[in-house]
Every structure is written in structure tokens, then in C-alpha cells.
């Protein structure tokens, strides 16, 4: 087998084990003597726990132990943390309530963790849980996001008066108000960014294990970032020091953000394993996933856009209330602040922006990052505003966007971001051509002729990925650095292991990372193994989220490969009896410049380890190098998505007829995988726009807690997609990569809603635009048109 180039759509090597049923997900792993955990969860959204009676349950067959919050407290197990400090406008730190792994005195959402039953079998644990008696003092639930902070509401946490976590802002208020005061036209919208439930197909699972001989704990867990889990469980929860705690995240069946966070369930399994000195296994059922996985989005927003007479945007003013749920999840506080407001400028040159965000507690599941995390919410605000403004002022929505595009780089927005590279008009031009925008009028007429309504919707999105540099993250309140690590180990015969702190849970790193190594070292991909997801193997890492594995994770590998190449040249110089400056490395061969004297990579590796032909006083034996990479800036993927759809006004059913995506992700490593990421993102974005919505009733019961009630996108809800790219090189990493994982989910919702509102001539169809909602709006449209 030969060398695989960057930019080649090679098939994925990891596929073989998945298509033959030989993957190793957490629930596939068993340890000798393991017991099973079942969590008794709160049936109430808000209540005091007045008494827990476990004596009958303890007599149930197979029961090993039952633990409650009292046991956690007695063992001084620390609470779960939120790792990003946000300060309010007045400079005060955010108000954070305690987050114990098992409830202590009160429950705050349906699904909150009341007790854990551990038994010989899962069925026995579940049976015994039914025999636990809990006396609850039911309290009024705070559910309404917009009203959560109003006076008179019962406080969910003593530490957070008026259920307010923070009143945060970004931008220049006075300058923005002045822009509005002198505006020729102001567009105003109110919108809700609907609450979503991530639903990775693999439910979360944990297997805690304790080795009393070495006093070492091991947690097998469905994690996107096992090292972060280890830090939190060690330094904050305090279960074991890092050197006595191993976290393994093997094959993980999708994450989309929901597996970033350190949850109560996994924490309790690990703690309990030591407590009972037996492995403890827990796998969520789907209803538990609905109830307790961190949800996404859930914003209530008012936005205003100021225009001058020529149609240029002069100001943007946004107020958002963000639902953070009953407890602050691991990165919850950052999502509606620093991952949101800095993206409000979109692709547009907007001189004045001001955004206020109120983060509130409610008696609902914690809300945290879900695919896109803040950036879909920002894109929805700006892309709806721009669309409405174009229509209100009689301008073509595509041309109105073009008029306001940023055209020179770097571009400093008024909201922190410094866009480094892009070509927004090029993406728009290509998208318009691919979507046959010129032929739209004829297609609309054809739809009308058969009693349908056709609409087109644009979304010119920009996102910020690969959050960086670490010093900036720290300055904004982040509790971690957001670099990535890599170690390249060359073996004696020239095969290579790459240890990476990135984690693959569907992204295909075993293929793309091996492509990088193959192309750089000139060795076949099958000689390269990618190792990830085990804190005993990989020293440190920050994991995979925010489309960071290419831009940050692969850059770390690239840096380690630079060091490998430099050392290999020295070894080659000794072997070939030439100065290392005279050694050239190309296509897997080290050659003395201007001669035919050469040695291949495998032989250099052999010589590095044998030490026979190198001076080991000048060069250490061996060939292994590590690197940490901290980028200089965020990356800025951007593009234009165009949705064209048809509405049946008799049924309200929306059919997406065409989807055109033109994205700029910088350099592509494997276009096939990139396209797959875009497809999946679009599907989740279309799901948000048309199908999905978490719904709590006024008592805080989750009405959408199964696949029977929460509408996941299925194959016949979606079309095939046309996915194209343009390329501007990202200057802030050595590979020129921008990241592609979230683009579709960010771009899609406004494209769909803009298309529906175009078809209907209305501006107020909320997400999800279900057939019922669309039918109601369509009736108004039909009546209006009949009257005309």
C-alpha cells in the first residue's frame, strides 16, 4: 500500500469493526463480579426531600447497597462543577447553586438523582427501587424561561436570587443606541430558539471499577473528553488523585456535545465501586437520556437591526434570556455568552453591536452545549433579522446580504472576534449558481399551479471553532486551556502510534489523523495506529467538541511530526555520514542532497533504536516526540446554505426540495468525511427547524421523553443534499484547517425558517415549524391571497 495524501477521500479504516458488530462501546464492556446501578429519580420538578425510607428495598433480592445524598455528603464527595466563570454587567461573579451527585434535601427537576440502588442484576436494582419510599414536599415549579427571573417566583437555589445566574452583556451600548437613533429603518423580531435534546444514539453509560490492591480507580465512560473528566473527578469531586484514576472512553456512539459534561450518574458509579469494592455498571435507558442528558438551546430573544438609507447595517441590538436549567452543567455558562454574542456579527460589517444575556435557572434538566453551542442561536438571530430587514425594505435577500458582507480580512468585529480569512461573496455566488436561483420564479409558479407554496431561504453563517488561545480563554473566565496534545511514537521497524488528546465518536479520526501521518512520513496508512480515549495511554488532552479536532488536534500531531522529522534527519545524517543540513526528506526517504545516497524511514527508525550507527552521546536513541499546540486564534468556518421547500397548504406538510451548501472549511483532509459531517449537521438543523422540540408542562413534567413523543429526523423527512466547498486557508494553524463539525447545524435552522416564511409571506413561524403550525400560517396566506 502506498502513501495517502491529504485531500483524498479514503474510506474509513474504523468502519470494519462497526459494520461487523465488533465495536467496543461502554455497554459492551463487562468486569468480573460487576453489580448494576439503577437511579431512583425525582418525579417532581421541584420539591424538598423530607424522608427517604430504604429498609424494604434493602431486603429486595440481589440488592447490594442503596446510597442517597447523605452518603455522598458523609464521604465528603464534592459537587459537580461549572467550569466557566461569567461575570455580570456590574462585575459580580455568577450566582451558582450547589450540584450534588445525589440530591441533598431537595430535587430541582424531573429526573434529578434521589438515590442509587446497586444489585446483582439490573432488573433486581430496578425492582428494589420501586420499594424505596420518599416523602416529598412539592414546591411550585419555575418553568417559563422569560418569566423565571420575575419577582415572586420561588428561588430554585438560595445562592441565586430571582433565579438569575447572571446579567451579562457584550458590546458598546451607547454607540449602538446612537446608531439606532439615527437609523433610516429598524427591523425588530422576537424569537424563541427551541429547546432540543441531543439524543446521540448510544445512551450514556458508565462502568466504575476499583482495584483495592493498587488503590486505583478506573471509569469506562461515554465521554468526548476523558482527560477533562479525570481532572474534574479528581480535583473537584475528589474521588481520587489523577495518578490513581484512569478514565477510558472507548468507542463512543455519538456525542454532539452531550458527552462533554461530567454527570452525576457516572460520578456515582465510580464512587460506589470503591464503596462496595465491586465494579458498578450503569447504562441509561432512552427515557433517562431524555430526562437527564444536558439539553441544548432554549433562548428567548428580542433582536433589532438598524439600517441606513442605502441598506447598510449600522447597528444590532439583542436581548436574550437563556435557560440554564436546574443546575449549571460543566460549560453551561459559556454557551449563551462567549459562544453566542461574539458571533452575532455574522458575515456582515456591523459597526455597532450590543447584546445582553440573562442566564436563568428553571426546574428543567441542565442546558449546555449541543452541536454548535451558542453559534446556531446567534446565527438564527442575525440571519432572521437580515432576512426580515431585506423584505421590509424591498431588497433581494441575497443581494442585501452581499451589500453588507465583510470583504477585507482580518476584520475586527465590535464583539471580540477577529475574523482572519474568508471570501463570503464567493460562497454566495457559488451557492446561487448551484441552487439555480435564477430559475426560482418558474419553480414557484409551477408549485402554485399544483396548489402548493414554494419558498427559498438563505443562511450565510459564520462560526468560531477551535476556541483559542488558552490565555484568551482564561481571560474570558474559562477554567481550562484549550490547546491539544499529541505524541508520535515511531516503532523500531517504522510503524507508528499516534497518541492524541482528541476523541473520536463518529468523526473518523483513525482515518484522517492516519492520513496526515502517512502523507508526512511517507508510510502506508495501515502502518499508523491512532490511540485515543484512555488517560493511561494519552498523557493529557482536551477532547473533541467545537469542531476542534482538525484545527487543534491535528495541528498538535503536525507539530510532533515536525520534531520527528528533525530528529530523523539527524539519525539519517549519522547513518549516511553527512551533515543533517544536507539531508532532504521526501516521499519517505532521507537523501543526501545532490547524491543518490538515501535511507528509507523504516531504516532510520531501526537505526534510531539500535544505536549502532549513531553517536548516542550526540543524539539520544529512540524516535518519539510529543507536542502541545495552542492556536493563535479561533478558526472561522463560514458558508452559505440555501433551502428550497414546498408547502402543502392543505396539510401544512413541508417538503424540502433542494438543499445547497457551500462551505469554506479551509483545507480539507478527507472530503468524504467532511461532507458526511455537513450532512449530519444539516439533518440536526432541519430537525430543530421542523421537527424537534423539548416540551415541559407547567408542572415541569417533560412531555417529550421518548422517541414516541420527541420527533427525531428520519430518512423520509430529509432530501439528499448538494454539498460544495470553497477554500480560503486558515492562517492560525499549520494545516490551514477551519473545522466542519457544526456548520450544518448552525446554518440550517434559519435557512428553513426563511424559506417557510418566504413561501407563506409571514414572518412569525416559530420552530419547530410542525405541520400544524405551518397549516395555521398557510391558511392565513391562502385567505389573504384569495382576497387579493
Amino acid at each position, binding site marked *: 500500500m502506498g502513501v495517502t495524501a491529504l485531500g483524498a477521500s479514503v474510506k474509513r479504516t474504523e468502519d470494519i469493526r462497526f459494520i461487523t*458488530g465488533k465495536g467496543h462501546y461502554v455497554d459492551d464492556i463487562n468486569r468480573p463480579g460487576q453489580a448494576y446501578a439503577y437511579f431512583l429519580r425525582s418525579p417532581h420538578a421541584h420539591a424538598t426531600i423530607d424522608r427517604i425510607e430504604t429498609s424494604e428495598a434493602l431486603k429486595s433480592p440481589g440488592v447490594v447497597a442503596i446510597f442517597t445524598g447523605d452518603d455522598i455528603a458523609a464521604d465528603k464527595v464534592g459537587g459537580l462543577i461549572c467550569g466557566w466563570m461569567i461575570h455580570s454587567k456590574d462585575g459580580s461573579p455568577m450566582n451558582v447553586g450547589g450540584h450534588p451527585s445525589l440530591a441533598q434535601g431537595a430535587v430541582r427537576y424531573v429526573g434529578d438523582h434521589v438515590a442509587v440502588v446497586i444489585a446483582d442484576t439490573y432488573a433486581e436494582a430496578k425492582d428494589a427501587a420501586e420499594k424505596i419510599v420518599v416523602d416529598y414536599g412539592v414546591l411550585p415549579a419555575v418553568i417559563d424561561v422569560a418569566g423565571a427571573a420575575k419577582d415572586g417566583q420561588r428561588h430554585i437555589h438560595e445562592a441565586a436570587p430571582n433565579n438569575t445566574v447572571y446579567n451579562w452583556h457584550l458590546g458598546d451600548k451607547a454607540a449602538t443606541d446612537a446608531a439606532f437613533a439615527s437609523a433610516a429603518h429598524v427591523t425588530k423580531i422576537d424569537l424563541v430558539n427551541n429547546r432540543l435534546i441531543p439524543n446521540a444514539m448510544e445512551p450514556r453509560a458508565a462502568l466504575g471499577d476499583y482495584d483495592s490492591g493498587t488503590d486505583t480507580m478506573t471509569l469506562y465512560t461515554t465521554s468526548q473528553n476523558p482527560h477533562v473528566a479525570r481532572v474534574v473527578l479528581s480535583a473537584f469531586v475528589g474521588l481520587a488523585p489523577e495518578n490513581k484514576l484512569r478514565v477510558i472512553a472507548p468507542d463512543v456512539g455519538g456525542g454532539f456535545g452531550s458527552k462533554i459534561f461530567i454527570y452525576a450518574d457516572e460520578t456515582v458509579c465510580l464512587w460506589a465501586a470503591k464503596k462496595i469494592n465491586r465494579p458498578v455498571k450503569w447504562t441509561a435507558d432512552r427515557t433517562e437520556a431524555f430526562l437527564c442528558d444536558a439539553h441544548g438551546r432554549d433562548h428567548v430573544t428580542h433582536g433589532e437591526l438598524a439600517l441606513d438609507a442605502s441598506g447598510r447595517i449600522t447597528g444590532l441590538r439583542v436581548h436574550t434570556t437563556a435557560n440554564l436549567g436546574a443546575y449549571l452543567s460543566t460549560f453551561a455558562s459559556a454557551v449563551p455568552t462567549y459562544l453566542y454574542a461574539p458571533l452575532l456579527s455574522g458575515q456582515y460589517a456591523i459597526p455597532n453591536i450590543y447584546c445582553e444575556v440573562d442566564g436563568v435557572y428553571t426546574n428543567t434538566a441542565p442546558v449546555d452545549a449541543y452541536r454548535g453551542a451558542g453559534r446556531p442561536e446567534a446565527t438564527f438571530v442575525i440571519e432572521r433579522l437580515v432576512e426580515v430587514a431585506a423584505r421590509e425594505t424591498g431588497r433581494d435577500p441575497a443581494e442585501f446580504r452581499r451589500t453588507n458582507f465583510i470583504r477585507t480580512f482580518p476584520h475586527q468585529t465590535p464583539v471580540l472576534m477577529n475574523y482572519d480569512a474568508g471570501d463570503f461573496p464567493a460562497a454566495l455566488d457559488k451557492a446561487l449558481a448551484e441552487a439555480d436561483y435564477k430559475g426560482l420564479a418558474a419553480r414557484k409558479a409551477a408549485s402554485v399551479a399544483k396548489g402548493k407554496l414554494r419558498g427559498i431561504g438563505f443562511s450565510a453563517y459564520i462560526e468560531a471553532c477551535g476556541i483559542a488561545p488558552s490565555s484568551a480563554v482564561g481571560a474570558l473566565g474559562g477554567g481550562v486551556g484549550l490547546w491539544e496534545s499529541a505524541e508520535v511514537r515511531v516503532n523500531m521497524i517504522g510503524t507508528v502510534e499516534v497518541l492524541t488528546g482528541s476523541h473520536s465518536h463518529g468523526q473518523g479520526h483513525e482515518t484522517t489523523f492516519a492520513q496526515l501521518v502517512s502523507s508526512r512520513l511517507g508510510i502506508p496508512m495501515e502502518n499508523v495506529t491512532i490511540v485515543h480515549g484512555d488517560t493511561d495511554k494519552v498523557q493529557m488532552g482536551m477532547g473533541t467538541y467545537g469542531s476542534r479536532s482538525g484545527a487543534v488536534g491535528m495541528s498538535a500531531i503536525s507539530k510532533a511530526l515536525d520534531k520527528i522529522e528533525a530528529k530523523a534527519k539527524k539519525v539519517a545524517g549519522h547513518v549516511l555520514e553527512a551533515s543533517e543540513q544536507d539531508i532532504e526528506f521526501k516521499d519517505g526517504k532521507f537523501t543526501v542532497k545532490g547524491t543518490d545516497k538515501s535511507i528509507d524511514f523504516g531504516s532510520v527508525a531501526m537505526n534510531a533504536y539500535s544505536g549502532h550507527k549513531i553517536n548516542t552521546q550526540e543524539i539520544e536513541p529512540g524516535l518519539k516526540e510529543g507536542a502541545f499546540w495552542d492556536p493563535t486564534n479561533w478558526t472561522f468556518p463560514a458558508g452559505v446554505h440555501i433551502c428550497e421547500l414546498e408547502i402543502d397548504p392543505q396539510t401544512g406538510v413541508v417538503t424540502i426540495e433542494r438543499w445547497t451548501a457551500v462551505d469554506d472549511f479551509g483545507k480539507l483532509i478527507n472530503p468524504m468525511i467532511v461532507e458526511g459531517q455537513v450532512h449530519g449537521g444539516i439533518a440536526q438543523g432541519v430537525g430543530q427547524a421542523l421537527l424537534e422540540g423539548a416540551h415541559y408542562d407547567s408542572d415541569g413534567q417533560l412531555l417529550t421523553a421518548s422517541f414516541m413523543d420527541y420527533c427525531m429526523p428520519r430518512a423520509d423527512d430529509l432530501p439528499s443534499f448538494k454539498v460544495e466547498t470553497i477554500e480560503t486557508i486558515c492562517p492560525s494553524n499549520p494545516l490551514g484547517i477551519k473545522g466542519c463539525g457544526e456548520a450544518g447545524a448552525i446554518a440550517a435552522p434559519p435557512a428553513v425558517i426563511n424559506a417557510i416564511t418566504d413561501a407563506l409571506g409571514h414572518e412569525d413561524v416559530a420552530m419547530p415549524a410542525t405541520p400544524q403550525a405551518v397549516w395555521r400560517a398557510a391558511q392565513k396566506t391562502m385567505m389573504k391571497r384569495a382576497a387579493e
Partner: protein
Amino acid sequence: MVHVSMAVNGRSASADVDPRTLLVQFLRENLRLTGTHVGCDTSQCGACVVHVDGQAIKSCTVLAASCDGAQVTTIEGLAANGKLHPMQQAFQDNHGLQCGFCTPGMIMASIDLVNRLGPNLDEATIRHGLEGNICRCTGYHNIVKSIAQGAREMGAAATPQAAE
């Protein structure tokens, strides 16, 4: 306890199990055939699809005891003599999977679709045929392509003379 006995991937398997044991639990826990996955508890997602007596069923919704005497095929039983089933190969060829969790059920359901409707499947038929299988990663685009290829190749393998 109840005694169950069935042929799984051509091998006989039997055990005494709790009567409430589901087929998927029997496969995963008794036989350690962990390629069949559980993605939900309402028989919606299809990650657990296996073939029982030649037909696709959701193994999270059938008792092991009710499959006594059946012939069961799981994802582990598809590849023969080191050669992937055409539908497995098609999923790799077309990038029809990302995280891989729904994939075994997708492949088993797809083969059943071809068995029922034949090898010439248009896009609408494939999409409708996937009604009982949820994927969160791929947006189905490449799954549809995979199934179209897998179906064609299953058809070609079944009628080798037809091509001549």
C-alpha cells in the same frame, strides 16, 4: 427460569434465563454478541434489529423465550469466510456510518428491505423503508446511497447469469 434454545448465526445456543429476558439481552449478555445495540426502549430506533427466521425484528421488543427454536442472524453472522456481506461493504464504500452505533441495525434492516422489495430500490423507497431506524450522525444521505449500492450488489450476487 425458562430454558431457551435457538440457532444464532448458525450455531446452537441455549441457556436458562429469567422469563422476562429480552432477545437482545440474551444475545448481548448470554452470548456476548454485542454488535446488536439498544438505542431506545420504545422500539423506535432500530439499533437492535436482527433477523429471526429470515425476517427483521427489533430484538429489544421480543422475549428470548418466544424465539425458542428460531434461527437468528445478527450483524456478527453476516460476513462469510472473511468476506463482507455486500450491504456491509456498501456502508463502508459510501461512508454510510459515523459513530457506528445505529449501523448494525441499519444494515440488518436494509438487507431485510432488499429481501422484501428486491434489489432495484429508488431513493423514496429506501427512505420510506428506513422509517424504523434512526441515525443521528449521517443525515441519512450516505445511508441511502449505501443501501442503493448494497441492494444492487445483492441482486447481482443472487442472479449471476443475469449480467451475462
